[in-house]
């Protein structure tokens, strides 16, 4: 999926246009706003019920569940621009779950500092370059504390684990938003459901 957008509004327009243009694309959840733990839990149970209705295999349901938990908790814990003026933006983001012909996609986007975005994209590039054995090794190093990222609960581990479980590269995109060094960071995670 390509993202050519500049703002949150642009993102939502983009998703809507994409939705309208695709036969086999449906939106399960589309949300913009503060993402709290309660909202995370609500989205998870909504999606679980929906996947059960669609009779998706257990394995696919577990993967989507896990990707949702990790993605939403990343926003709750890490999203937000730098500086005090950004306090109201902390923990805010967009969240989309969509279904395409042979996959689900869990997409998150949030404002972050350019510095953070740079670190994050380097890490995602590193993850995407690794094979299964490399990811396992990176996971073990990270969980042993070799690369402690934050006291909020290691964001690094989440992405490594998602890459291992989905066996797909983690698509991401950075959009300039013209606000004192902050950018909009989008991560799209693909979960296959073709058996």
């Amino acid at each position, binding site marked *: 999926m390509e993202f050519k957008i500049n703002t949150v509004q642009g993102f939502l327009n983009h998703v809507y246009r994409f939705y309208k243009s695709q036969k086999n694309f449906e939106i399960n959840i589309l949300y913009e706003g503060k993402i709290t733990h309660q909202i995370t*839990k609500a989205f998870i149970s909504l999606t679980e019920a929906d996947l059960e209705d669609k009779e998706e295999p257990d394995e696919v349901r*577990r993967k989507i569940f*896990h990707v949702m938990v990790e993605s939403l908790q990343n926003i709750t814990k890490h999203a937000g621009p730098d500086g005090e003026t950004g306090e109201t933006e902390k923990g805010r983001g967009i969240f989309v779950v969509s279904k395409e012909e042979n996959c689900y996609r869990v997409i998150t986007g949030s404002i972050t500092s350019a510095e953070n975005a740079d670190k994050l994209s380097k890490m995602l590039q590193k993850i995407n370059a690794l094979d299964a054995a490399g990811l396992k090794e990176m996971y073990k190093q990270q969980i*042993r504390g070799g690369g402690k990222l934050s006291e909020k*609960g*290691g964001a690094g*581990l*989440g992405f490594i684990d998602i890459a291992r479980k989905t066996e797909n590269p983690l698509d991401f995109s950075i959009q300039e938003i013209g606000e004192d060094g902050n950018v909009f960071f989008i991560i799209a995670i693909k979960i296959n459901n073709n058996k």
Partner: protein
Amino acid sequence: MEVIKIIETDDTPGVILDKENNNFEIWGRSLPEDVNSFFEPIISWFEEYAENPNDKTVLNVKMSYFNTASSKILLDIFVALEDIFETGKDVLVKWFYPADEDDMKEAGEEYEEMIEIPFEHIAYNK
């Protein structure tokens, strides 16, 4: 020593840590809002227990789901058990996994690779 009994919720696991009755269990789902504050008393309990442990400690782990922040904490618990094992005491982790869930099975095997204590892997039917 103090007994820890925590009732399982939809985002935090059930926990029993009872030295006197030699019963140590953790089960359920773990995706707490604040992983550190939920597990802090549990980690502290293990640290205190390690100072004067029972001759044999069997920890039953039967998780249905845990997020990556919790996976790090589980490792911390196993490391505390490893300290006990290294003093020559008997330690065993019984890792229960649903028979049809390879990812939960593999998670147990990976912990065993990272830790010097014996694991027993037990499949169960949901």
